[in-house]
């Protein structure tokens, strides 16, 4: 199962419609389950829900063979920490899908680092989905502990 998710804050019709169309063309041979948030377009080729609570989201993610999504940092983090092959298409400001293009910037950097695949336009989606099948994401070594440690030292210094 491919897990498609676009977050819950804004619609992402351009993306959901494109994936549905690709399914129509017979280019996807796997079942899709989608969490589409505020998206008004309703896909007819696969099951979709507006939102999932955290447990159900985690369950779907763990079951999935791969993930296709918007470039939300929350989704990226969860896909990476579950070692799932991930294809993202950033929301773009010019389509009113997001208030700035930060999504595109972080996704581009992560794709350069081998953590995920990225497409910027719906016309590149079929190719991206095809590549996703054989994509092995490079593990990301994050260091939240190092930041936490730095902040802890700062807080300790306030006590002296």
């Amino acid at each position, binding site marked *: 199962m491919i897990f498609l998710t676009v977050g819950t*804050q804004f619609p992402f019709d351009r993306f959901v419609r494109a994936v549905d169309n690709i399914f129509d063309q017979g280019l996807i041979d796997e079942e899709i389950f989608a969490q589409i948030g505020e998206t008004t377009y309703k896909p007819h080729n696969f099951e979709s829900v507006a939102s999932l609570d955290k447990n159900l989201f985690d369950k779907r993610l763990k079951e999935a063979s791969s993930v296709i999504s918007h470039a939300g940092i*929350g989704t990226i983090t969860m896909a990476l920490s579950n070692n799932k092959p991930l294809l993202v298409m950033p929301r773009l400001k010019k389509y009113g899908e997001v208030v700035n293009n930060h999504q595109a*910037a972080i996704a581009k950097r992560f794709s350069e680092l081998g953590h995920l695949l990225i497409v910027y336009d719906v016309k590149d989606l079929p190719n991206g989905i095809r590549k996703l099948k054989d994509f092995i994401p490079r593990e990301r070594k994050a260091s939240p502990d190092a930041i936490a440690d*730095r*902040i802890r030292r700062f807080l300790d210094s306030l006590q002296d």
Partner: protein
Amino acid sequence: MVLSKNKNLKICLAASAGGHLTELLKLADSWQQYEVFYVSTANMVAKKLNRYGPTHVVGECNREHLLRVFLVLFRCVRVIIHERPNVIISTGAAVGCIMCFLGKLLGAKVVWVDSITNVEWISLSGRMVRHIADLFLVQWPELAEQYSNVEYSGAAI
């Protein structure tokens, strides 16, 4: 006693719902020993945050909707007067920025961790907060070289 000493600090943890909050919560080890409260932007995350500490939802705002900015600002003022934190820790965005400035006005120390999504430049909020921050962290080493008074110590994600 270390524990009783640490109770001297009350920390405000401020982040917009979504990625900013995800990043902030990754740093939870740093404030385990302190009294904390949360400020975020959406009711959806309040349920989760309430398990970790008192939570204030002040609503979302950005530069493009000035009236909302004033409404959120007003709510933030109420929170800060009510809670009187000694430290503000924020990963952004606008609401975090507002809490940092209000906190500073009342004498709080400010810790800003600029979001990892800011790859080439620090965020707009971060650029403002940088002038009043007591500790300013970025999550890409290149950014620490690009700006003064900015440190890199790792990436949360």
